[in-house]
């Protein structure tokens, strides 16, 4: 599989003709995001379920980005490596993605690009160029985009040519505006052509435009005209009969919101009553904080206007220390970052740990190590999240797998932090953060705010408050900075119950034991359903162990297996610390085979499982090219395993994403 390069990557998949896997690509800054936004909103407004996946370079303008959108009447939780419909309006997207259109699928391309040599595409990686050229040469095709198109046609793909320049010209004429202005609708034209092709009612596209540019009627009008033009053009120009997919709006109008993972976390934090967030910009965490900044105040059921004070700091060290300082006063407080920033927070986490500060750190994993793949995804930071800090302190590590979990877990994190008075690391990854989904509006009724044991120091004691008094649970009532009578000390050093530094060996042992006991308390108290969740057939032996953003794809793969009568189950680990070792030992006893699925090189969860239980996974399915897993590739892989492959570590590769 290692040298399966520019080639179709999956078996042709059958997806019902009334659902769609659609892709749009283009240079960063050219409106790809807007295009995908229009497409997704149009579909969601028609009551369809939408799943969006965004891939982009660490670059502001010019490099390639693309958006995969899957739309269906049933909920979708994963992208497909292959799509039925591809929209491109420049060279690179066509060169990269034509190969990913399935037989029976279709693609749009810009007329002007046909003669272009693959070699001449500015930003296409050398490796990708070489592979594509070799592929075309092998097949005796010209090493131009024309060759790429020809290959697509040979593989049963409809190719629809569009002269975007001409369409823009007509629009300019029609609206009597300059072409430069009209050209801004290129992405709208492209989206509308796709939707026209699947005969989707255009009124939803109009509505989508209004959602994207609320109140900006001039822009909306221009784009509405573009939509009409595109619909007209498709009807007039193409033979659409060969492309069988059609998209119909849904009758059901269940309430749905369309958002991404960064937003879901931000909303969860607001719901949980977070009042302070410090941050230093870093992909893919920034968008959460900038969303919060843009929503710094909001209404509140008690009449007063609610708010979150968001502070951009000078670095992540400052961010974590500032958040810890704020938390000491009783403010629910957090910071959000990703790998490199988290690496800088390690010392601060230790301080919060020994001082039993309820501090929430939202960690969006991205490709590593080091600067790595800043805008790509990886589940590479589990080891670090579990071990960040010299020596030991208790921590709660909580991993979400989708937007709903992201929201509720973001809120739950504060309860854990305050209940166990310690650091909570909420792990997500880039693929969740930039994933868009239409989901039911989150239910605030499901959230209960528990503030843990807060001291009432005015109850008549003398002298400093015994903030760190050893208790059976390990939890001691904490006075908040500013409370009368609650004065005590805080220090990164080992300390007495009053928080004064000490090196006494006995007090040291007491405090170390007190702190670590909190982990046992948490392990006892946190319901098993929060710790892990089981999907698929709970009685199946064929067991997949995974965590985080892979869940959607795995669940879909299991459903595909189920359709063929193959039973399988997924055990999703959500709480990584305290690790649910005993629970897993029991659950995993009948597993045969046990398959770890992770988006990292060495199977970190699998190793943590073994560390705590001795249980080793029989197989490891990993992906570490920085891109999320696709359901159907997993399905194929599981089939291979069922068929008895010898491989123990299977690497999912896809050179075309």
């Amino acid at each position: 599989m290692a040298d399966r390069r520019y080639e179709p990557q999956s078996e042709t998949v059958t997806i019902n003709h009334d659902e769609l896997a659609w892709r749009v690509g283009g240079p960063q800054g050219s409106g790809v995001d807007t295009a995908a936004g229009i497409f997704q909103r149009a579909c969601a407004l028609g009551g369809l379920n939408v799943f969006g996946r965004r891939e982009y370079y660490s670059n502001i303008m010019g490099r390639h980005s693309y958006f995969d959108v899957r739309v269906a009447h049933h909920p979708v939780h994963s992208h497909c490596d292959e799509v039925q419909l591809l929209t491109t309006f420049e060279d690179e997207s066509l060169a990269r993605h034509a190969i990913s259109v399935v037989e029976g699928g279709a693609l749009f391309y810009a007329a002007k690009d046909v003669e272009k040599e693959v070699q001449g595409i500015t930003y296409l990686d050398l490796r990708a160029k070489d592979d594509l050229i070799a592929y075309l040469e092998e097949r005796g095709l010209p090493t131009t985009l024309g060759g790429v198109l020809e290959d697509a046609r040979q593989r049963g793909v409809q190719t629809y040519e569009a002269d975007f320049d001409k369409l823009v010209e007509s629009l300019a004429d029609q609206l009597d505006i300059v072409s430069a202005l009209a050209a801004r609708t290129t992405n709208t034209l492209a989206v509308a052509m796709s939707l026209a092709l699947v005969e989707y009612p255009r009124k939803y596209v109009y509505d989508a435009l209004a959602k994207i540019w609320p109140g900006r009627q001039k822009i909306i009008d221009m784009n509405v005209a573009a939509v009409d033009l595109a619909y007209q053009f498709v009807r007039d120009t193409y033979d659409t009969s060969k492309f069988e997919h059609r998209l119909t709006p849904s009758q059901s109008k269940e309430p749905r919101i369309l958002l991404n993972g960064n937003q879901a976390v931000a909303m969860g934090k607001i719901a949980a009553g977070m009042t302070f967030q410090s941050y230093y910009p870093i992909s893919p965490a920034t968008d959460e904080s900038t969303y919060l900044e843009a929503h710094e105040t909001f209404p509140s059921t008690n009449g007063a206007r609610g708010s979150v004070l968001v502070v951009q700091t000078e670095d992540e060290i400052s961010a974590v220390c500032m958040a810890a300082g704020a938390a000491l006063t009783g403010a629910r407080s957090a910071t959000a970052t990703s790998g490199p920033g988290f690496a800088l927070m390690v010392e601060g986490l230790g301080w919060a740990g020994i001082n039993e500060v309820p501090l929430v750190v939202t960690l969006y994993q991205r490709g590593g190590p080091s600067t790595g793949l800043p805008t790509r995804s990886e589940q590479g930071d589990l080891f670090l999240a579990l071990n960040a800090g010299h020596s030991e302190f208790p921590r709660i590590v909580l991993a979400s797998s989708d937007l709903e979990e992201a929201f509720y877990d973001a809120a739950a994190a504060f309860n854990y932090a305050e209940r166990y008075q310690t650091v909570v690391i909420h792990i997500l990854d880039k693929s969740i953060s930039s994933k868009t989904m239409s989901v039911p509006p989150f239910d605030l009724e499901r959230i209960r705010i528990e503030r843990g044991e807060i001291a009432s120091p005015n109850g008549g004691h003398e002298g400093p408050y015994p903030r760190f008094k050893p208790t059976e649970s390990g939890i001691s009532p904490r006075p908040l900075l500013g409370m009368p009578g609650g004065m005590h000390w805080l220090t990164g050093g080992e300390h007495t119950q009053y928080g004064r530094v000490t090196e006494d060996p006995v007090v040291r042992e007491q405090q170390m034991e007190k702190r670590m006991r909190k982990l046992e308390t948490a392990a006892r108290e946190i319901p098993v359903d929060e710790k892990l969740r089981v999907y698929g057939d709970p009685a199946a032996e064929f067991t997949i162990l995974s965590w985080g953003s892979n869940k959607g794809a795995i669940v879909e793969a299991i459903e595909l297996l189920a359709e063929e009568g193959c039973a399988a189950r997924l055990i999703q680990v959500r709480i990584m610390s305290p690790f649910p070792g005993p629970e897993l030992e029991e659950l995993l006893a009948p597993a045969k085979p046990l398959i770890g699925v992770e988006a990292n090189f060495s199977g970190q969860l699998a190793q943590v499982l073994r560390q705590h239980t001795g249980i080793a996974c029989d197989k490891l399915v990993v992906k570490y090219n920085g891109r999320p897993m696709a359901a159907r590739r997993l399905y194929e892989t599981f089939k291979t395993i069922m068929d008895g492959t010898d491989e123990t570590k299977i690497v999912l590769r896809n050179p075309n994403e």
Partner: protein
Amino acid sequence: MTTATATANRKLTAKDFQVPFPNDWCPGCGDFGIINAVQQAFARLELEAHKVAVVGGIGCSGKAPYYFPVYGVHTLHGRLLPFAHGIKLANPEMTIVGVGGDGDGLGIGAGHFVNAGRRNLDMTYIFFNNEVYGLTKGQAAPTLAMGLQPKSLPAPNIQGQLNPLMMAMSVGFTWIGRGYSYNVKKVVDLIVAAIEHPGLSFIDILQPCPTYNNLHTKDWYAGKDLDSGQPRIYWLDDTDYDPVIPEGADDAAVLGKMNEFLTKAHEWGDEIPAGVFLDNRATSTFADRIETRIENYRAQPPNKREIADESGRPTADLSEIFDEVRMT
């Protein structure tokens, strides 16, 4: 040790801000004078102990928080400013005093020093300037002049010296003073003024370290080596130096004051100025600026906002937020 609160019939004294725990600085350390001064200043300001946080860095100096019966926060090396900021931002009612060493502040902590200047948050930062890393046994601090060799150094210092006053001015501290730890009375005055200043205050305290700094000792500051035999330190309030940048000062006025400041801050050697170098009343505080974003920030600061009703239900109403992304 009880909560220090002035009552109708009793004024607070420094004693109210002392603790009955032993102190482990070296005999004769300049740090003692500083905490004495802080205790007196707290008393003079009639602060309520529970509304005060003393936030320390790491170093001999960083241990100072242990010597006050207030909220005492001994943070990480170089990080007192971020922690202090977090506390003050979340609970703006508190009086925050930072206490930290020169290595802490301008070595490992320099990045925060620089960026704290940009915020002008209302707090006081007392900088213990002993020119060495005391607690790690006498290495050069960034305040040590090039070419000097205090006794722990195997060879003369090859790194240049930072001028803390200059640094504080360059980055935006709005109140800047210098004290000398053996002149407690003057230090008390400085601390009181610094705390009363509504923005970010900085006090450079020349703090002899008898254990490791054998160059700039009490005797040296007393000028015993000088022909004149006169103390090196003189006080700006005995001169006609005016530190004030008044509210609404124009750019030219600010620049003029900066030049005067620079000249004074540069003086060192046989005559060392101390006192108030800058009192800038023209720059808004961070809390003022936050209020432009969060109108009720002072009334409902992060530590006070009611986030749940009695049954634990969130008070946040997300309907507006959901509406923005609502599709159906």
